C-alpha cells in the first residue's frame, strides 16, 4: 500500500528544512572571517554598478523629468532597506543564499515558486535587455572607430518601433557568454576589479565632460512630473540597485557582522547613489529632459550625449562606448550565471525536471541549464525589443525583496531563538519600512507591467500545481535534500570487509 499523498495545502505550505550549506572538502578554509567594512563596501559597489546606469536615464527621465534625482534617492532607500533585511535572512538561514531558498525555508513551497518566478523573470528580461543595450553600444563603437555600422535590419528586433529582422549582436553576446559558462569560466576577483575600475572610469569621464555644458535652465520645472512621475521613475530605476544584496550574503566571511554589515550596506548604497545622481545630474545639465526620450538616444544614450556636448568630436563617446561594451559583457556573464544557478537549485529541489540539476561530468557545470537559458534569452533578445521592459526587472526584484522582508518577520516570530549572525537594527520597524518602501516603488509601475508580471507568475504557478508539487523532493520526506556526505570528509566507498 502506498502512503496517502499529502493534501494540496500541505504541499503548498511545506517548507524546505533549514540545513547548513554543504561545504566542500577544505572549503571551510576560505570562510575565514576576513572581510572588513571597506572591502565589503567596494564589493557592494562593484556588484551594483553595472549596465543599468548606461541605459536607465533614457527610460526614467521621460517619466520623472529633472526630478529623476529624487527618484534615485527613493529607489536607493528601498534597495538599502531590503539589503539590510536580506542580511539578517542570510545569517539566519544558511542555505545557498538565494531569495528563492529563503522563501522555501520560511514561507513554503508555493511562495518559493512565486519568488522563483520573480527571479526567472528578472534574470531573463535583464539578460536579454542587457544584451540589447550592449548591441547599441557596440554599434556606436564600430561607427565611431571605423565608420561602419551593422545594418539596422541586423540590430533591431522585428517587433520594435523601427522593425528590423534580428538583433544579431545581442544573440552573439548571449551565445559567447553561454560558451564561457559551459567551459566553467568565471570572472575572477581581478577581472571583477578591473571591470569596476572601467565602469567607474567611463562614468567619471562622462560626468566631467557633461559638466562643461552644464546649464541650470534645464532644471526648470523640476517638479513638473509630480509625485506620480517621481514614483514611476523610481520604479524604473530600481533595477539599477540590484546587486546591493551581494553584500548581505557575504555574512559568513565578514568580521563582526553586526557592525560591519549595516555600515557596508549604507556606505555602498551612498557610494552607488552618489555615482548615479552625479551621472544623472551631469546628464540633465546638458540637455532638456525631453531629449532623453528622443529616437537618437535610444541606443548608446550616454555616448550620444557626449557627442552632442563636444559638438561632433567623437573621442569621448568612443571611450565611453568601449567601456560600456567591455563592462556590459561581464555583467551579462554574471547575470546568465545567476539564471542558470537558480534553475539548478529548483531542479535539485524537484520543482523543475531533474535535467536542470544535472551537472556535466566533464566541465562540472550545469550544461543543460546553460543551453536552455541561452536559447530562451537569445530568442528574446534577438526578436523582442525588451529594452522597453526594464520595468519587469524592477517588479520581479521588488516582489522578491518584499518576501525576504516578510520572511525576516515570520522567522523572528516563529523561531526567535534561532542563532543569527546579524540582526536587523530597529526590528520590527526596519523590515516594515522596507516592505513599505518596496510597495511604494511598486506603485509607480505602469499597469501593463503588472499585467505581464501577473501572466508570468500565473504560468509558473500553474506549472507548480500541475507538475512541481507532485515531483518536489520534499515528497519523500526531504531525505534527498539532506546532503548526507557533503559535510563529511571525502567519502570513500570501501570494499566489503574481509570476513576474517
Amino acid at each position, binding site marked *: 500500500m502506498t502512503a496517502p499523498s499529502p493534501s494540496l495545502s500541505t504541499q503548498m505550505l511545506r517548507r524546505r528544512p533549514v540545513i547548513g550549506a*554543504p*561545504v566542500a572538502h577544505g572549503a571551510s578554509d576560505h570562510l575565514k572571517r576576513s572581510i572588513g567594512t571597506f572591502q565589503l563596501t567596494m564589493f557592494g559597489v562593484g556588484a551594483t554598478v553595472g549596465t543599468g546606469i548606461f541605459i536607465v536615464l533614457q527610460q526614467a527621465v521621460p517619466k520623472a523629468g529633472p526630478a529623476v534625482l529624487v527618484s534615485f534617492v527613493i529607489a536607493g532607500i528601498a534597495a538599502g532597506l531590503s539589503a539590510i533585511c536580506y542580511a539578517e535572512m542570510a545569517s539566519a538561514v544558511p542555505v545557498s543564499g538565494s531569495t528563492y531558498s529563503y522563501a522555501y525555508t520560511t514561507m513554503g513551497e508555493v511562495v518559493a515558486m512565486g519568488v522563483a518566478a520573480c527571479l526567472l523573470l528578472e534574470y531573463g528580461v535583464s539578460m536579454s535587455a542587457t544584451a540589447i543595450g550592449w548591441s547599441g553600444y557596440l554599434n556606436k563603437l564600430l561607427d565611431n572607430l571605423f565608420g561602419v555600422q551593422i545594418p539596422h535590419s541586423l540590430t533591431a528586433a522585428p517587433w520594435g518601433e523601427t522593425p528590423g529582422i534580428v538583433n544579431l549582436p545581442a544573440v552573439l553576446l548571449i551565445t559567447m557568454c553561454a560558451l564561457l559558462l559551459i567551459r566553467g569560466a568565471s570572472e575572477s576577483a581581478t577581472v571583477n576589479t578591473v571591470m569596476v575600475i572601467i565602469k567607474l572610469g567611463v562614468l567619471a569621464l562622462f560626468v566631467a565632460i557633461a559638466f562643461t555644458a552644464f546649464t541650470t535652465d534645464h532644471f526648470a520645472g523640476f517638479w513638473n512630473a509630480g509625485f506620480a512621475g517621481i514614483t514611476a521613475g523610481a520604479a524604473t530605476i530600481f533595477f539599477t540597485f540590484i546587486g546591493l*544584496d551581494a553584500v548581505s550574503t557575504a555574512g559568513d566571511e565578514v568580521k563582526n557582522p553586526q557592525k560591519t554589515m549595516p555600515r557596508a550596506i549604507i556606505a555602498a548604497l551612498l557610494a552607488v547613489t552618489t555615482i548615479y545622481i552625479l551621472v544623472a545630474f551631469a546628464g540633465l545639465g546638458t540637455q532638456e529632459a525631453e531629449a532623453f526620450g528622443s529616437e537618437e538616444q535610444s541606443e548608446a544614450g550616454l555616448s550620444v550625449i557626449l557627442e552632442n556636448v563636444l559638438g561632433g568630436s567623437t573621442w569621448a563617446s568612443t571611450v565611453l562606448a568601449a567601456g560600456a561594451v567591455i563592462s556590459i559583457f561581464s555583467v551579462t556573464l554574471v547575470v546568465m550565471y545567476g539564471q542558470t544557478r537558480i534553475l539548478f537549485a529548483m531542479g535539485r529541489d524537484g520543482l523543475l525536471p531533474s535535467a536542470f540539476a544535472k551537472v556535466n*561530468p566533464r566541465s562540472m557545470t550545469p550544461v543543460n541549464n546553460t543551453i536552455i537559458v541561452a536559447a530562451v534569452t537569445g530568442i528574446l533578445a534577438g526578436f523582442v525589443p525588451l529594452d522597453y521592459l526594464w520595468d519587469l526587472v524592477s517588479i520581479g526584484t521588488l516582489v522578491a525583496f518584499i518576501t525576504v522582508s516578510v520572511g525576516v518577520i515570520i522567522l523572528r516570530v516563529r523561531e526567535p531563538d534561532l542563532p543569527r549572525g546579524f540582526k536587523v537594527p530597529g526590528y520590527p520597524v526596519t523590515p516594515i519600512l522596507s516592505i513599505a518602501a518596496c510597495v511604494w516603488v511598486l506603485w509607480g509601475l505602469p499597469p501593463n507591467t503588472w499585467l505581464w508580471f501577473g501572466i508570468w507568475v500565473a504560468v509558473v504557478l500553474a506549472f507548480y500545481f500541475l507538475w512541481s508539487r507532485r515531483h518536489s523532493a520534499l515528497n519523500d520526506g526531504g531525505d534527498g535534500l539532506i546532503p548526507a556526505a557533503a559535510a563529511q570528509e*571525502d567519502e570513500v*566507498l570501501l570494499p566489503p570487509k574481509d570476513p576474517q
Partner: protein
Amino acid sequence: MSVAVGYLAGKGGRSPLYLAVEAATTLKTSLTVVTVVPRPWMTPSIARIDAEYAQYAEQLAADSATEAQKCLDSIGSGVKVDFHKVAHRSASGGLAEAVEELGSELLVLGSAADGRLGQMVVGSTSDRLLHSSSVPMVISPRGYRGSTAGGLSRLTCGYPGTPECVSVVERVAALAERLDVPMRVITFAVRGRTMYPSQVGLHIEDSILEATAGQAREALVELKKAGVVGDAVTLQVATGNGWDQAIDGADWQDGELLALGTKPSSGIARVFLGSRGSKILRHSPVPVLVLPG
C-alpha cells in the same frame, strides 16, 4: 617486450631510473635506457666537418650510459639492463623511434627540472610524447627515489564518470589483476568559482559540487554493478576547491600509481592528454601512468 626509460646525463635528474627499475620489476621484464643524442650531419664530406660534433654526441651517450649504470648499480635490483643510443633531431622523436624499434611496452620519463621536488612538470619532450606516444607512459615526480615498499602497492584509476572512459577502467582493472595489486577508482570533483549575481548567494557552487559528487558516486557504483570492476575495488570521490585540493585530499599511499586514460584523437591508438589530465598530472603526488586512447 621491455620497459624503456628516457635518460640524458645532466637533464631532469635520476628519478625516472628509479621508477623504471620498479616498473621493470613489477612487469617482470628487462629495462632499456634510451639516450637521444643530436644527429650528426649525414652528408658525406672529405673534410669530415662534423667529426667533432659526432664525437661530442658519442661522448654524451657514453656519459649518460655510465651515469645511468652507476645509478642502477646503486639501486641494485637485479633487473637486466640494456643501453640504447638514438641519434635524432628531437628528443621526443628519438624516444618514439626507439620505443618502436625496441618494441617496448612502456616508456618512463621524468619531470622537467623546473618543478619543485615531488612535483611533476611536463617538459617539452614529455609534452610532445603525451600527445603522440603509441605506448603507455609513466611520468615520475621530480626527485622520486622509489617506494619504500619496493614496488607497486596500489593502482588508482582516474575516472571522470563519462561512458567513454569505462574502457580505461576496464584496462586498468585488467592490469591490476595481472599485477595482483589492489585497485581504486577515483573521481575528482572540483568546485567551480563563484560569481556574485544578485539574489543567488555565494554558496550555490557548493550545491553544484555536491551534485557533481553525487553523480560521480552513482557512476562509480554503476561500475561495480555493471561488473567492470570487482567487489574488492575501492571507490572514491575526492572533492576540493581546486584540483590541488581535490587531489591532495585523496589519501595517497607509498608505492601507489595513478593511471589516466586519454581520449582517442584519431583512429590510431595514441596517448592524447586532455586539459583535465594535465591538471591531475601537475598535482599528483605519485607517479602517473598515461594510457593511449
